[in-house]
């Protein structure tokens, strides 16, 4: 993993010049290597900037001025030997060849494909039934261009290849649209239904818009469901996912879930193995419009909280106020004492540095796979990862 740095391949990765296997190895290394990751962020910004360079239109007078120069330079120019209809025929051939060329590009560029009219697209594979792209049913394989909807009914399922960085399985009764696919950003919209994503890219390259939040991939696998009211449920099976809406954010690790509501955004993440009463009470704390009911639910939650539920409590610190915040702090301090330098007053005043320090200290207890790993190694990993997540979040366009 650390044997060979990949900085020389960063532009090639962003431009899709690496093979799928090379891309996967690149992404795995980037996630683990702080040095290459820092360089990746720099080059990625350079790519994003260079993409803004427009092709300019040459002024109309150029040909008028060029013709006499050609004659002066003794370039032999004869009147046109082709008639107007021949030029029209040539134009028609151009159109046909463009279509053929689009197909060639489609068939020769791995997962980075273009439709016949030049739109970026992703490959789609039918898994069951007859999924539709737009109004067209796809047989075994199809393509989903930017702006197009993929829809499944009660009997159909499909799989999308997300450029070269992963795949998304689309369940029954689901409607998704490809919003953007660029080296620096891939974005889907999930209007309703359920999808399962497996992404092996560096953090914050793959996003899913839902009616009530944006899911930002931080290197992970997860499922995301959206119901007819626009509420969603995120369940993370590996890595991390950030759910965001305006200034509200929930960071959801493997084993945890998080619900969202339209206009309210992401609720508070919770581990799925928490007590049933804890989960029910959290739903009230997050979404009940009655303040007294929320406060009573918070008390019930705190009574049932375990050490691992500090994930939920940490997020709640910034979402409740006054006495409720103090209660959350006291419960957290009892379950996982704050590290040196983190004070009660600072946390209650929402000092960001203290909140981050406590978060980082608790993170190893939230991730089951780190049980048994030497503490210094686990802490070093999470310190790097948390710094990266925050930097990426600061950099990401909202």
């Amino acid at each position: 993993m650390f044997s060979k740095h990949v900085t020389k391949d960063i532009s090639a990765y962003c431009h899709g010049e690496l093979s799928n296997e090379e891309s996967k190895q690149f992404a795995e290394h980037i996630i683990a290597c702080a040095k290459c990751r820092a360089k990746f962020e720099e080059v990625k910004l350079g790519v994003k900037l260079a993409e803004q360079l427009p092709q300019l239109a040459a002024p109309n007078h150029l040909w008028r001025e060029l013709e006499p120069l050609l004659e002066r330079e003794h370039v032999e120019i004869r009147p046109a030997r082709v008639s107007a209809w021949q030029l029209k025929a040539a134009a028609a051939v151009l159109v046909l060849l463009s279509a053929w060329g689009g197909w060639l590009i489609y068939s020769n560029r791995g997962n980075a494909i273009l439709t016949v009219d030049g739109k970026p697209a992703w490959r789609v594979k039918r898994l069951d039934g007859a999924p539709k792209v737009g109004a067209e049913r796809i047989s075994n394989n199809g393509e989903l261009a930017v702006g197009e909807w993929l829809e499944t009914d009660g009997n159909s399922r499909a799989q999308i290849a997300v450029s070269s960085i992963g795949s998304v399985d689309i369940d029954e009764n689901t409607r998704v649209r490809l919003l953007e696919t660029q080296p620096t950003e891939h974005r889907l919209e999930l209007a309703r239904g359920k999808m399962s994503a497996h992404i092996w890219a560096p953090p914050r390259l793959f996003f899913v818009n839902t009616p009530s939040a944006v899911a930002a991939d931080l290197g992970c696998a997860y499922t995301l469901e959206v119901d007819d009211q626009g509420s969603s449920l995120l369940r993370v099976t590996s890595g991390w996912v950030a759910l965001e809406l305006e200034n509200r954010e929930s960071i959801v690790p493997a084993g945890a879930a998080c619900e969202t509501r339209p206009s309210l955004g992401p609720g508070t993440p919770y581990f799925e193995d928490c007590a049933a009463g804890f989960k029910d009470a959290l739903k009230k704390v997050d979404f009940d419009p009655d303040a007294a009911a929320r406060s009573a639910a918070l008390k019930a939650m705190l009574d049932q909280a375990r050490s691992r539920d500090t994930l939920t409590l940490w997020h709640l610190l910034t979402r409740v106020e006054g006495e409720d915040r103090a209660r959350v702090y006291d419960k957290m301090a009892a379950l996982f004492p704050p590290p040196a330098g983190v004070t009660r007053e600072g946390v209650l005043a929402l000092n960001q540095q203290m909140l981050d320090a406590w978060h980082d200290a608790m993170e190893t207890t939230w991730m089951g796979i780190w049980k048994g790993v030497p503490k210094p190694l686990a802490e070093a990993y999470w310190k790097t990862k948390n710094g990266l997540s925050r930097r990426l979040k600061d950099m990401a366009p909202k």
Partner: protein
Amino acid sequence: MMVAEQLIDGRVIEACQQGDRAAFQLLFETYKDKVFSIAVYSSGGDPAVADDVTQQIFLKLFTAIRQFRGDSEFTTWLYRLVVNACLDERRRRRRLLPWGETVAMSNPSEKKPQEKQYARLEVAEAVRAAIGELKPKFRLPILLKYIEGLSYEEIASVMGCSKGTVASRLNRGHSQLAKRLSHLNNPAAWGE
């Protein structure tokens, strides 16, 4: 390479070599915007210089096209002419002007922008200026990639170097752009 350019390669070039005016014009119309764009970005944004460079490139193209034997792709041959002309122009201008001076240039096809569009145009203008400050060996691969849409292999062929060198120069070009325009690394600068 676009397929339309492949047709130019196969049908029109032969007519150009025989001095066919319509074929010349078709060739010009096909490549004029791309050639002009590179000329603009390589001339520090000066439209008058870009006009001259574009005309010189097509003049040279039309006088030399009979020597084109099809040993390489036509586009490779054309973009070598473009790259050499831009380097020549830069050498000439370096004696006259401090490099990196830019002249504001409006694009006639641009419509009155909305707020976000305006922010994007400002970013594009900043990128345009920053591109002009890069050394040609870093600037030209970026222009061939983003304006012409060439692959690494095609850029390597145009510039007479290896794919690895292209990747390395693009990396360094991107890094330098990012460093010069680090103040644009926030959503507000993009109107978001």
